[in-house]
């Protein structure tokens, strides 16, 4: 593996840290990580009691998400995987807006037409819709970067994906063209150990993932993904290169998914307990906490305050979202065509007429929406 960039020492100090993030920014990063955990926690319970259909936990990879976001502007383009919403939270997305998506209600930005956890935002952050298919968003990120380049803007695109994503066709297409065009894009590969139940050892025969950058004519960097400062540094460097016209960078963040792939997964069936224990010692939230403590920015009172704030905010968000009615029938036909074509207008009229006669549709009783 390429040499790994790490900032945190075992005692919580970070002597190489250049102060790129000020005190306020550091606390904001930490709070965002706690918010990710709080959001995950309540979603797991909502799913287990059938109130939402599906969720994807992030425990273990928060530093990669938040560290990357903290190195970018809210106006940069984020092309996330389904385990990345910390990036949106960091730039001001509201938990309640995410919760609207979890319930698929009328206030969801996708009006219930997306799967749960598939958030999308245009404001306050350019966070493209999370996509379930693996690696399909990488070429999109290159396209957006190419557009920024053509328009003479200094926006950067970041595509985030897992180790499994490197086996997709999109990975090759995207990295290849990004290299050719010197597009201002950052490829953030979150090597979290597992592609659902496939261990990283079954994913590639190459020595890590960063090395793949060489074949596409771009630098490849390996970074300690559980070290927020290191991720911030790596992404900052890549963003600087991109804005300076030097083209793309592939970053491999070495991290670990400490929970299941999703609420439909039971990781105890394939994850060795010792492996999980080993990584728990490197919990990214604890390491950040230790750093803040060492820097005199953290105490129990702050911890208590942040935890309470986060728990209250997500609980309130869940209440609001659950009480918000579902999307109206019209939304099946809206938001695609400016003027609805005749055949769809006819289908719509039939649907409305049927709904009129039969009453509202069954909400599904907690069934997974497939």
């Amino acid at each position, binding site marked *: 593996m390429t040499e790994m960039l790490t900032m945190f020492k075992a005692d919580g100090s970070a002597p190489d840290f250049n102060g790129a993030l000020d005190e306020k920014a550091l606390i904001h990063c930490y709070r965002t990580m706690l918010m990710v955990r709080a959001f995950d926690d309540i979603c797991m319970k909502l799913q287990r*009691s*059938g109130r939402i259909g599906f969720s994807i936990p992030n425990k273990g990879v928060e530093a990669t998400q938040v560290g990357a976001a903290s190195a970018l502007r809210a106006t940069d383009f984020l092309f996330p995987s389904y385990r990345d919403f910390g990036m949106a939270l960091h730039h001001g997305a509201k938990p309640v807006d995410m919760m609207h998506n979890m319930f698929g209600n009328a206030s969801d930005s996708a009006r219930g037409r997306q799967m749960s956890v598939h958030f999308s935002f245009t404001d306050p952050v350019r966070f493209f819709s999370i996509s379930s298919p693996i690696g399909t968003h990488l070429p999109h990120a290159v396209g957006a970067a190419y557009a920024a380049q053509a328009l003479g803007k200094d926006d950067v695109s970041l595509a985030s994906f897992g180790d499994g994503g490197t086996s997709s066709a999109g990975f090759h297409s995207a990295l290849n063209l990004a290299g050719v065009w010197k597009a201002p894009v950052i490829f953030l590969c979150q090597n979290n150990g597992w592609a659902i*139940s496939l261990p990283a050892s079954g994913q590639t025969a190459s020595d890590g993932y960063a090395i793949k950058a060489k074949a596409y004519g771009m630098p490849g960097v390996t970074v300690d993904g559980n070290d927020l400062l290191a991720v911030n540094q790596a992404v900052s460097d890549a963003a600087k290169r991109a804005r300076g016209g030097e083209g793309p960078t592939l970053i491999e963040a070495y991290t670990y998914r400490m929970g299941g792939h999703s609420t439909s*997964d*039971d990781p105890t069936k*394939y994850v060795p307990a010792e492996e999980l224990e080993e990584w728990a010692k490197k919990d990214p939230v604890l390491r950040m906490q230790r750093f803040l403590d060492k820097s005199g920015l953290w105490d129990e009172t702050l911890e208590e305050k942040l935890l309470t704030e986060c728990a209250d905010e997500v609980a309130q968000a869940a209440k609001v979202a659950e009480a918000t009615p579902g999307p109206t029938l019209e939304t099946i036909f809206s938001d695609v065509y400016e003027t609805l074509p005749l055949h769809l207008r006819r289908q719509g009229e039939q649907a409305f007429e049927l709904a009129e006669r039969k009453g509202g549709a069954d909400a599904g009783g907690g069934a997974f929406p*497939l």
Partner: protein
Amino acid sequence: MIEFKLPDIGEGTAEGEIVKWLVSAGEAVKEHQAVVEVMTDKATVEVPAPADGTITKLLAGEGDIVPVGDVIFHLDSAGGGAPVAESEPSAPSTHEPAPAVAPALVATATTSVATTTTSKVLAVPSARRVARELGVDLETVAGSGRNGVIRRADVEASVSGTGGVSTVPRPAAVSEQRIPFRGVRRKVAEAMTRSAQTAVHFTIVEEVDVTELVRVRQKAKALGAQQDIKVTFMPFIMKAVASGLMKFPMLNGHLDEAAGEIVLPGTVNLGIATDTPNGLIVPVIPGVESKGLLQLAAELGDLADRTRKGQARPDELRGSTFSITNAGNIGGTLATPIINFPDIAILGVHRIVRRPGVVDTPDGEVIEVRQYMNFSCSVDHRLADGADAARFVAHLRETLEEPGLLTLLLALKIDSMESFS
């Protein structure tokens, strides 16, 4: 009042087994508090309460298989209000709602009656399951986890007496035990019933003089130890079985009843019946015919170990073409093993005994102390006949009595094995 329906916990699960209620009827719960443990095809999970309130009625018993969407409990979220309608004819009597008493009374009742407060004990789900299986009262177990949470090891230690746990010694057989019939035990029962009711079993027993094998294995053991591989008799037996099955393929495979075809896969995937803390599980070692003895020993050690720890992958637990059970090394002379359905046959392996035996020497027949091992082979008579089974066990005897032949078999390609006799 909320009628709580069993949700689809995974993607497209159809039903779940109620493993354990973590609250009783009449108990007050908080939103997100775990109410019931449910096992689906995918995972065992704790299902939480959807709101603050009082559980007024449990509508399914532990061990019941409930379709997704069925109401499993009633929750009075108003906080102590109206009792639920009385007409619930299908509800088992043990799950009758507690009288709708004031919340304060409920609280008193649940804290003072020790025998009904298992839900107050903090324990991980696997600890609860093991406790049920071993008949351990969790109240008597000290938890070593964070906040005193009882872990599985605590329960096991409390039984074996190795932990620093102060438990009252359990008097032997004082009262009748009622063990819930579910989980792995029930899965084993279902599989065995299907096998016994479908396959027409007959069993043939062969006695094998393993004196030479014992000697060879002793050497192999030392050789394996250099590479940290534990060499038991099993790899030898597996190798002999695999060569026998390549020679007599009618015993290796399964019946595809839907297609009306006997499926003979041409490769030997051996199911190895393994005794685990959770019960009998049969992990599978594929392609045995093309693997070396040490490799088999290593794979077997690893797979058996992970199976006992519950870490075998689902794809390692299916696809057997023949199975071996060696519980016989604990005791017993012969057995009539039940076929690991839908395999065609199974081999039971028994312990080695020393007996006087008649041996041919250049000076004539002499009596020597020899070592013998019995093999019991059960076959589905629908698919193979007694002669097939007799030839197969004779092949086992020939190869295992002269284990040198095994090395020959190792070097042979599959097609040339046909000509080996």
